[in-house]
């Protein structure tokens, strides 16, 4: 038993934290968010140079062969800084290629992902599907008259994170044999881009007979999608812990400095107890993020992994809500303003609570796995 990061993980987390503290302060981030593109190519290059884009990929492709635990410290730092670069969607796309793809596809794509030259996104969720990963309406069929390897894909995908930034998009669609994955270049898709509540960039993606390349086996995609979604869910749990830590720290600081009735408001017991509950909620969330990331990395089976990830997501969703709401409440009116970072961590935590399934979704999934 050991809950510490190893030396490498700690060094990496520290260097990411230092980099973000220096280059990704609240003011710098504001400019990035307000830019046309909505993320910074410069920051992206730096992240890649630090090795972050290669962390979970095999050394065969220049990566570090790491797992979710190796990414925990990075995601915490990202949560603390409220990073908006399309890091998570690129990792998700890359993981789908790594888990499902053939050798040629991996060789063609992963080194570029590792080096930060290629950004990916995963277009899966559809209207009416809510959080059900199996419910996909998009369809694909072999192109007529082509060389035999090309497919035509038709459908609509909603809230594809990093859609516009992506060079290639992994798209899920049904064939005669069932749910499958395809690689599609961004140019052959219609992307309607927008800003999300948490100031990231996403878009709705439409495609009609878009040309795509089958990724992995035809019809066997659901277990891979579930695996990668669990991986990503564990990562946002770690990211949430970083955002919660920020929200708790900044609120505690405010309680110590803000004066009313001639004394710091942190002297009031009504507020002290609420602050303690936030602190405890953050520690409990951290514990569950550790569990989720460890189980994602272990080989104890898909059921065990899914159970741990769903349990973690329930706790993270509940506690993200508690901490984000209380951090605003304890800041009073100032917490409502765009001027304070705490209102932005509120927005990110609000979205994380629902990203990849809200508490209700994971309560149902956990119960189903228990049978």
């Amino acid at each position, binding site marked *: 038993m050991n*809950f510490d*990061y190893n030396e490498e993980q700690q060094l990496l987390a520290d260097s990411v934290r230092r980099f973000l503290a220096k280059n990704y302060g609240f003011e710098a981030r504001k400019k990035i968010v307000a830019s046309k593109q909505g993320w910074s190519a410069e920051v992206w290059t730096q992240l890649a140079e630090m090795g972050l884009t290669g962390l979970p990929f095999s050394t065969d492709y220049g990566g570090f062969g790491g797992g979710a635990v190796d990414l925990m410290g990075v995601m915490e730092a990202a949560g603390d800084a409220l990073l908006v670069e399309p890091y998570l969607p690129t990792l998700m796309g890359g993981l789908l290629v790594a888990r499902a793809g053939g050798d040629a596809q991996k060789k063609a794509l992963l080194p570029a992902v590792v080096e930060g030259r290629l950004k990916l996104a995963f277009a899966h969720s559809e209207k009416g599907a809510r959080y059900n990963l199996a419910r996909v309406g998009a369809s694909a069929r072999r192109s007529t008259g082509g060389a035999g390897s090309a497919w035509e894909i038709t459908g609509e995908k909603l809230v594809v994170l990093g859609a516009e930034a992506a060079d290639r998009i992994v798209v899920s669609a049904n064939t005669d044999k069932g749910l499958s994955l395809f690689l599609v270049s961004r140019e052959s898709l219609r992307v309607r881009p927008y800003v999300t509540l948490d100031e990231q960039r996403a878009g709705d993606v439409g495609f009609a007979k878009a040309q795509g390349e089958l990724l992995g086996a035809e019809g066997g995609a659901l277990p891979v999608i579930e695996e990668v979604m669990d991986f990503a869910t564990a990562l946002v749990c770690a990211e949430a812990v970083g955002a919660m830590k920020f929200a708790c720290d900044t609120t505690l600081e405010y309680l110590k400095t803000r004066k009313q009735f001639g004394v710091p408001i942190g002297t009031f017991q009504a507020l002290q*107890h609420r602050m303690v509950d936030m602190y*405890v909620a953050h520690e409990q969330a*951290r514990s569950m993020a*550790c*569990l989720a*990331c*460890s189980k994602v990395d272990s080989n104890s089976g898909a059921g065990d992994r899914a159970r741990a990830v769903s349990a973690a997501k329930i706790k993270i969703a509940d506690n993200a809500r508690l901490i984000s709401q209380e951090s605003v409440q304890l800041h009073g009116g100032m917490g409502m303003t765009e001027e304070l970072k705490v209102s932005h961590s509120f927005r990110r935590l609000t979205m994380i609570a629902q990203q990849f399934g809200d508490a209700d979704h994971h309560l149902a999934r*956990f119960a189903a796995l228990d049978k």
Partner: protein
Amino acid sequence: MDLNYSQEESAFRDEVRGWLKANLPQDLRDKVVNYGELTRDDLLRWHKILAKKGWVAPAWPKEWGGTGWNVVQRYIFEEECGFAGTPPIVSFGMHMCGPVLLRFGTEAQKKRFLPRMYNGEDFWCQGYSEPGSGSDLASLKTKAERASDKSGDHYVVNGQKIWTTLGHYADWIFCLVRTDSTLAKRQEGISFLLIDMRTPGITVRPLVLMDGGHEVNEVFFDNVKVPVENLVHEEGKGWTVAKYLLGHERMNTGRIGASKRELAKLKDFAARQPGDDGLPLIEDARFRDRLTRVEVELMALEITNLRFLDQMRRSGQPPGADVSMLKIKGTEIQQGLTELSMQAVGPLAQPFRATGTDLEDGAFDRFTAGLAPRYCNYRKTTIYAGSNEIQRNIISKMTLGL
């Protein structure tokens, strides 16, 4: 990061589990899992079985009977005991007075009290709270005045203690008393005394709780003579002792093993109990969601507890104020489970069978009739041992610096 127990730790768990299976008397286990009232004999019988095995005081120094286990082993042991359904080790001696004597006692006091405590020859209770001093312990008024007569130097104790758990079983009580009331600072002038419960002038009056059970008492002191050699540490330094005792927390403040047993039992029961639609209650989404939330809370608490143990093992330092977190969450979970268990049986929870009545009374279902009283009884957990509000005060002050 590795959340798994090492091979040695797992082997240790197997050893403890195997031994408990072979040595926990079935009638005691039945009483514990069916929420029966444990008698003095029940508690001491289990205590003596553990003492004979050498496992009754794991945290004590080896020379006094400790096992030499590290914090993780001690946690595993307590978790397994909770999971198996052993009677509790009565804390007042082994986990409270014992550590105090080991830290502050004279050699003579250690030799006099520790072996008898270890072997279950003396049953101890705690005299801290008073009617006017609950959370505000330092306001206590029970007075001890120095006097001497032909029998020697002694204190004369007058006053009242309350919430004295198992005081009616006890041979000895350790008390905080006021030896000097002239000092400006209330924490000064308090002393730590060991008092023989058979001394003339002591009266124990039961306080029956709303579950019908008798576990706490009021203890009255009317000119009770206590020899001066029963003073622990210096006169007037009792607050230092009290603080040490509060900091000397057990590994299993969150009672995770027992909550795991209760959860498993509840799930098993809910799988057999029909809901309104005739399907198993556990498939009722509303019930199931509440059950899962408690289960997830317990998972989080277990890992948080392991994180603290991991820190303690490597730093060699006690966990400090964060133990308060384990108390808050652990008791919330225990209450959540008792509440859900009572609700799980629906209308069958209504027949009242007071805690401690005969389990074999045919008029009641052994399981269901104990659930509502237990729900009532467990409201105590967020009040005792420093209410959860006091625990929040501790975290607020010690950890957050507010």
